[in-house]
Structure formats: structure tokens, C-alpha cells
């Protein structure tokens, strides 16, 4: 598959880093990537070390970090949905799914990335995945783009089986880690000390295709 138009639907700035290598490859191959980021991650606990962000300044700082990370990855079109961090599951799910569907109809992606519902660990991730699946499911079966999902739960293999797609991004792992590091407030959380182990962990990206 050689996708031309990709839609990414994730919950927080820095979620895109989980599949940063895969997205970089798509961008390098000329795909146009639209990224719906549902929240600004403004309730995140990482405020820099030593802390330089406050609850008040964090959303603007994270918006800027998101911009930088997307530039590094090659994501040209970022849509902030403006939902409140941690509150995604409490929004009107149908209404948010409609907003996602509108973007699908506008950009006509041939490939979608989101979280696997129930395997996101963070409730916002699960809600994000469920909303996206709901939006895609509204389309006629033959019009549904392939939807690849991120699963983060330890039991994901047992429940979902082997991933449909294991992408070895070793050759661009340094650039991927740089994009993750653009989220300076979250840097500690995401990378710890940038070690060989960190690098190894980021070499492979695993995705499960959602079966509607």
C-alpha cells in the first residue's frame, strides 16, 4: 500500500511519537498527513525537570511542542479539537465522532491511525480510539479507510493476537527520538535518559488493523 492521504487521530500532544517512525516514512514517501489531536494534554503531570510549566502555561507550551514535533515528523496539517485533557470519555461521543467524520469526508484518507479501543491504557486513548472507530463505522463498508490501531496494554497480544504490522524504523530512530524530545515538558517521561535501551524500545512500531 502506498497511501497518499493519512489521518491520525490521537488524544494528546506526544501520542504521535508512539508511531513517529511510521509517520515519518509516510511523509518521506510523499503522503499528506492530517493529525487530529483531541486535547492539549493540559492536565499532564510532567512540567519539566526542574518544573518550568504551570497548570496555566502548560497548554500553550504543549501546543508549541506539538508544532515542533509535527514539523520534524512531516505532519503538515494539525487540527486541535480543543477537548479538555482527561475528559474525552465524558464528552458527547456521538458529537465528537461527527466532527471526526467531517474531517474524514474532507481529507478523504486512505489510511487512518488511532488507538485500539480498550487497549490504550489511558482513558483518553480508549475514548479517542472508540470515537474514531465510531466515525469510520458510519461510512459505508466499502468506503472505510484501513484503520491501524496502537495497543498499549500488556495483554494486547493475548486478546488481539499478533500485530498486523510490525514496522522496523531502526534507520530513522534517531530522528524519531528527536521528534519525541520536542515535547520538552514530557521528555523525562517519554525517554528517561536517552540510552541504548531507549533506542531499542523505539525501533519497532506495532499496529493492529481494526476489523469492523
Amino acid at each position: 500500500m502506498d497511501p497518499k492521504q493519512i489521518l491520525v487521530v490521537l488524544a494528546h500532544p506526544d501520542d504521535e511519537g508512539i508511531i513517529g517512525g511510521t509517520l515519518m516514512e509516510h511523509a518521506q514517501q510523499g503522503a499528506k498527513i492530517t493529525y487530529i489531536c483531541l486535547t492539549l494534554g493540559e492536565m499532564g503531570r510532567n512540567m519539566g525537570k526542574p518544573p518550568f510549566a504551570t497548570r496555566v502555561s502548560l497548554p500553550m507550551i504543549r501546543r508549541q511542542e506539538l508544532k515542533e514535533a509535527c514539523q520534524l515528523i512531516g505532519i503538515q496539517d494539525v487540527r486541535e479539537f480543543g477537548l479538555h485533557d482527561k475528559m474525552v470519555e465524558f464528552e458527547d461521543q456521538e458529537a465528537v465522532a461527527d466532527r471526526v467524520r467531517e474531517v474524514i469526508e474532507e481529507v478523504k484518507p486512505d489510511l487512518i491511525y488511532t488507538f485500539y479501543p480498550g487497549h490504550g491504557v489511558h482513558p483518553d486513548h480508549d475514548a479517542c480510539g472508540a470515537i474514531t472507530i465510531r466515525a469510520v463505522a458510519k461510512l459505508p463498508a466499502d468506503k472505510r479507510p484501513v484503520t491501524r490501531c496502537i495497543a498499549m496494554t500488556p495483554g494486547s497480544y493475548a486478546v488481539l493476537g499478533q500485530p498486523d504490522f510490525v514496522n522496523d524504523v531502526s534507520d530513522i530512530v534517531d530522528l524519531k527520538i528527536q521528534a519525541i524530545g520536542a515535547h520538552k515538558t514530557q521528555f523525562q517521561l517519554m525517554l528517561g535518559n536517552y540510552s541504548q535501551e531507549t533506542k531499542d524500545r523505539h525501533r519497532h512500531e506495532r499496529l493492529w488493523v481494526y476489523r469492523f
Partner: protein
Amino acid sequence: MKSIEPARIQQLLDQLKGQEVYIHLEMTTGAYAAHRGEAKLAATAFITNATVTYSQGLIAGDGPYRVGLKTAHGWVFAQGLTHWDETETSRLIAAGHDPDGKLVVALQIAQEPFSSHEED
């Protein structure tokens, strides 16, 4: 963010008392605490832009600090406060960070509602 200077916090608490103010009060272990095995339970509670009027607000302790606000029918309380935004002159932005810099507790008081998506 700077380490809390109790005298300046007290000054802000006095400045904001006796009027309707917006508070943000939060306590969190982080959504991933159980996933990472850091805690047996991932727990968070927050209330944002609740309006209260307090008749007395005090900061206590030698650091980390405690703040208690006495309201007409009860209390607002935060413990573990370590840092504050020293650039704020009319509102209180205080938080408690663990040694990794992660936010554990937050207390904010202002005359205007806090916006989670202020324009830059």
C-alpha cells in the same frame, strides 16, 4: 516556577479573600501509575473553576506547605505544595511536584476563570 515563599503566598491569600474567586484544586497519581507499577491505584481528582468565597486563608508548614481556606460551610485544603508562579501578582498558582518534577497536587485561586486553552 519557584520554590514557595510563604510570606508572598500569604499576601495573595489575603488579597483574594472575602470575594467570590475561582479555584482549581487537583490531586493526582498520574493515569499511568498502576500501569507502571508505581502505585497500586491510579487516582486523580480535580475540580476546575469552582467558585468559592473564603473568609480566611492561611499557609502553614515549613515546606512542603499546606493551605487551608475557610468557607461559609466548610474548607478547601491542599497539602504538599512546593512551587508557585512568582510572576503572578493577582492570582495564586501553586503546585506540589515530586522529586522527578511531576505534578502531584495543584491549588490555584483567581478572580477570573482559568482557561485551559488560552490563546498564545
